[in-house]
């Protein structure tokens, strides 16, 4: 898991956002500044050619990690190392991420002008399952799935080593999602791409990921190979997420509804952030924040209680 030459390495990366009220309000109402720690001490490595998925519920910080990796945000603490040449990002909403006034040719050619790479737009379109003739059309002429193919072609135009995909199929219908996931797997095989795949959908992640990191309230709580994570989840939160999966095979397994909800990230619980919802929490969990040891951050696992 810890290779000698990781393509990407994050070392205790944190990111705060200032969510204070406007200055005048603060002065009049004597309020202090308020900081929201969206990502809190996250470390992991990615090896070339693998797919690392980050999963978690909304607000867990997984998208902020994606933005930190590509440099859309700077880390407040910690460091990131990238040992490749280029990275590109694919966004969730294919309607918002393509310029509606540009023809597809221009959209795909833009990264090549900036990065000075030379690729044939028609060939890129063919690679993602579109026709070279589509280059002369505008984004509104395409369906959601086709637009996501255009986003992928645009990302490939920059000849990236690393692709950061933030919920790339969440806005798509299942049959279209299947087409895009198959396409991404095929491109990875053919071009040796490395993916960071951000998703809230565990079933999608189990299909596409080699390794999976689970996040909760800005912290990485568990990281393991996809096989191990889904067959032997260790952290109580991971277990909870897997138990909450819908039973599509109708095996009669009732899914266990989880008690409680994600706490307010402005005031995360002390100790282990998951303790208010955790069935295994004890006094230590309430006061002492668990360290990330051997792929999991949990006192109960560390003490051998579960």
């Amino acid at each position, binding site marked *: 898991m810890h290779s000698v030459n990781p393509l990407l390495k994050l070392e205790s990366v944190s990111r705060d956002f200032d969510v204070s009220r406007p200055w005048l309000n603060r002065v009049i109402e004597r309020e202090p500044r308020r900081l929201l720690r969206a990502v809190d001490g996250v470390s992991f490595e990615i090896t070339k050619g693998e797919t690392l998925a980050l999963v978690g519920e909304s607000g867990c910080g997984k998208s902020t990690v994606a933005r930190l990796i590509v440099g859309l945000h700077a880390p407040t603490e910690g460091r990131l190392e990238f040992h490749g040449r280029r990275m590109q990002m694919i966004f969730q909403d294919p309607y918002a991420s393509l310029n509606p006034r540009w023809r597809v040719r221009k959209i795909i050619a833009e990264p090549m002008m900036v990065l000075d790479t030379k690729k044939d737009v028609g060939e890129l379109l063919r690679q993602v399952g579109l026709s070279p003739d589509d280059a002369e059309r505008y984004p509104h002429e395409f369906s959601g799935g086709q637009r996501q193919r255009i986003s992928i072609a645009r990302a490939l135009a920059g000849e990236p080593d690393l692709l950061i995909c933030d919920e790339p199929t969440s806005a798509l219908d299942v049959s279209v999602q*299947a087409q895009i996931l198959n396409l991404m797997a095929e491109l990875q095989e053919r071009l040796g791409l490395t993916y960071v795949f951000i998703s809230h959908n565990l079933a999608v992640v189990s299909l596409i990921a080699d390794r999976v990191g689970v996040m909760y309230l800005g912290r990485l709580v568990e990281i393991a190979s996809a096989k191990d994570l889904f067959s032997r989840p260790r952290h109580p939160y991971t277990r909870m997420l897997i138990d909450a999966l*819908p039973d599509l095979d109708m095996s009669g397994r009732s899914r266990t509804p989880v008690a409680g909800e994600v706490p307010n990230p402005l005031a995360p619980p002390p100790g282990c952030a998951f303790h208010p919802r955790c069935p295994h929490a004890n006094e230590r969990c309430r006061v002492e924040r668990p360290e990330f040891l051997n792929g999991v951050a949990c006192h109960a696992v560390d003490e051998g209680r579960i």
Partner: protein
Amino acid sequence: MILEVEHLKVQFPTRRGTLTAVDDISFAIAPGEVLGVVGESGAGKSITGMAVIGLLDPPGRIAGGEVRLEGKRIDNLPHEALRRIRGRRIGVIFQDPLTSLNPLYTIGQQLEETILTHLDLSPRAARERALSLLREVGIPAPEARYGNYPHHFSGGMRQRVVIALALAAEPRLLIADEPTTALDVSIQAQIIALLKRLAAERGAAVMLITHDMGVIAETAHRVAVMYAGRIAEIGPVRDVIHAPRHPYTVGLMGSIPKVGSHQSRLMQIEGAMPRLNAIPPGCAFNPRCPKRFERCVLERPALLDAGTSRAACWLHALS
């Protein structure tokens, strides 16, 4: 049967001609039964729901067929009569709880108002009933939350309040349009369990509209799979999921990723659902169908018996 829909047709007149969004669909829901209506975006599932409750956005209109609630036709009622029925005998739950709640009133006021409008109760009894509804949908400490505004609640709790509102007048029919789509997985399971229990306890009929087969598998008794404004297949959930009879359902089930399946590629349906102005003649699925033959291109299939289900596919025609 609580709800009967027969040969329903919904059309949208546009400048470039009339679009048929729902094309001749029929189904019925019995007391205590949950019928799942599943399909991809644009399949017509939400429009079917809106047509049933008479809330189609103009210029959309019912162009044919009948909708009957407990045996009485409701699709031709005047606006005001239908409005009373909607509050009293039909409860509606939408995807986004914020659109169903008024941000300027406390949840207690909203519940009381709904109860007083539809039931003949004293204000005091209405408050009692509102509190017991909140308790029933799992709002902790309802007395303390009674005076809170919608923005004080989290997404999952808001959806519980909306469910309480929908149930306030003891409706016979509950229409839930993507009730869990905006929620996180862990909250989804809670809401699904709640809907299922309430429908069973009250003997109400539930029409559950969703794109999520997982939600259907856990909640519904029967499922109707929609494609391009038509029902492709309808039958008991277990049979539709384990032994789909329509090639579209087969492809749809195959394209859903499953944890623990150890597959590296998903089954894939080529192409996309046709737009409403370009629905092909014959079977609407025929250009994408791996099992297409001559008849599929020429003649539209009706729902034909296929095992315990019914599928609109010529493969099931008795030759």
